[in-house]
């Protein structure tokens, strides 16, 4: 008997097939979320608002921006290579993302997303809103031809069109709280520094923890003189769910 067995039996009692991931617990507890996996756009916004207003501890925005700025500048002084700084920021973000997703799912109580399109909506309207109090605009790619190998193995059957590898969504940030006071010098512009690259890491880490392998990268940045700040999140593949080694 393992700690998740009672959960498993509860899931089977509700009529689900197979092993349900632990983070569906909030739905089971509330007893009404089990059969509604698709929240509408308005609901996402409302959940995001509610999370930001009610259930988050807040930090002074200036302090946050100044701390992040000092961090980036320190990395530049230490590594002296802008490409390496980008990599390090992404790594840091990855570590943050791995932890942050648990907190996010526990607080929001959201269930599994039907397809990658919905992942984009939830990330933009609930995730970014809850942690940074911004709501980036999401644009989705046109659905590519479905590739059989990328079907997720669980009992649920998401819509085929948006789950193929290569699907992506783009987040356009209107304002970036990390880059509040920043003016990039010429060397950083030439070196190709993506100042807010930590955000890419956070998204990659978070989505990897919920079984999606993604590529996240900046397309444009107002700090570099572009018109908008845009991040692209591209699905590489769904990851097989693995029972933790050593248990059972």
């Amino acid at each position, binding site marked *: 008997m393992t700690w998740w067995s009672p959960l498993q039996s509860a899931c089977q009692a509700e009529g689900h097939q197979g092993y349900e991931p632990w983070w569906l617990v909030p739905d089971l507890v509330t007893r009404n979320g089990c059969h509604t996996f698709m929240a509408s756009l308005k609901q996402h916004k409302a959940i995001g608002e509610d999370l930001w207003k009610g259930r988050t501890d807040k930090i002074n925005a200036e302090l946050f921006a*100044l701390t992040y700025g000092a961090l980036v500048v320190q990395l530049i002084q230490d590594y002296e290579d802008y490409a390496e700084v980008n990599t390090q920021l992404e790594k840091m973000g990855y570590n943050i993302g791995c932890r942050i997703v648990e907190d996010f799912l526990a607080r929001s109580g959201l269930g599994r997303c039907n397809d990658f399109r919905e992942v984009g909506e939830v990330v933009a309207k609930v995730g970014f809103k809850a942690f940074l109090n911004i709501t980036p605009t999401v644009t989705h790619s046109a659905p590519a031809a479905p590739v059989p190998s990328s079907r997720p193995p669980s009992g649920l059957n998401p819509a085929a069109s948006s789950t193929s590898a290569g699907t992506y969504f783009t987040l356009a940030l209107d304002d970036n709280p990390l880059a509040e006071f920043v003016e990039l010098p010429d060397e950083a512009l030439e070196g190709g520094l993506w100042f807010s690259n930590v955000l890419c890491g956070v998204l990659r880490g978070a989505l990897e923890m919920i079984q999606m392998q993604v590529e996240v990268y900046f397309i444009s940045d107002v700090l570099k003189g572009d018109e908008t700040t845009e991040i692209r999140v591209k699905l590489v593949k769904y990851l097989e769910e693995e029972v933790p080694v050593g248990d059972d």
Partner: protein
Amino acid sequence: MPTPMRLNAAAFISPQNHPILVRNFTSVKQDDLKYHYVAHTSLDVIEERLAASSKQNECYLGLLYSMEDLAVYGFVTPMRLRIVIALALSDAVVRDADVVLIFKALHSAYCRSLANPFLRLYTPTDADPATLLTFGGADRFKAFKQHVDEVGKAVTGNTEIKA
């Protein structure tokens, strides 16, 4: 809110009396040097006023002196940075409150520019914070100039301040 004042120039001087920025808002380019002199002479008056006043936490110094066509006002920030503005002399009554507003806006522009984390990269580690904006080339305080220009535009309502 239309004000009868015309902001001719603004100058920022460090606590050690080094000029940080002297910005001429009029379109008369030859006056650039004149406003440098104006800022320089205001320094003496500021020192006098600071020595004389017993209240150490008084930021706004009021009218320092007036010249042929200018009224020069002074302001000292809590970090002892000096801000000097030159208003065109006019018959209309200039309210203290309005002038203090201009100073506060200029001070915010300065603070905002100072918060750029990349300034630290180009100065020695133990440099005085007030001199952060003076090190390096002209592009170090491009943003500072822009912020100050915005304040100037807001006051004069003039959208054609040339760089």
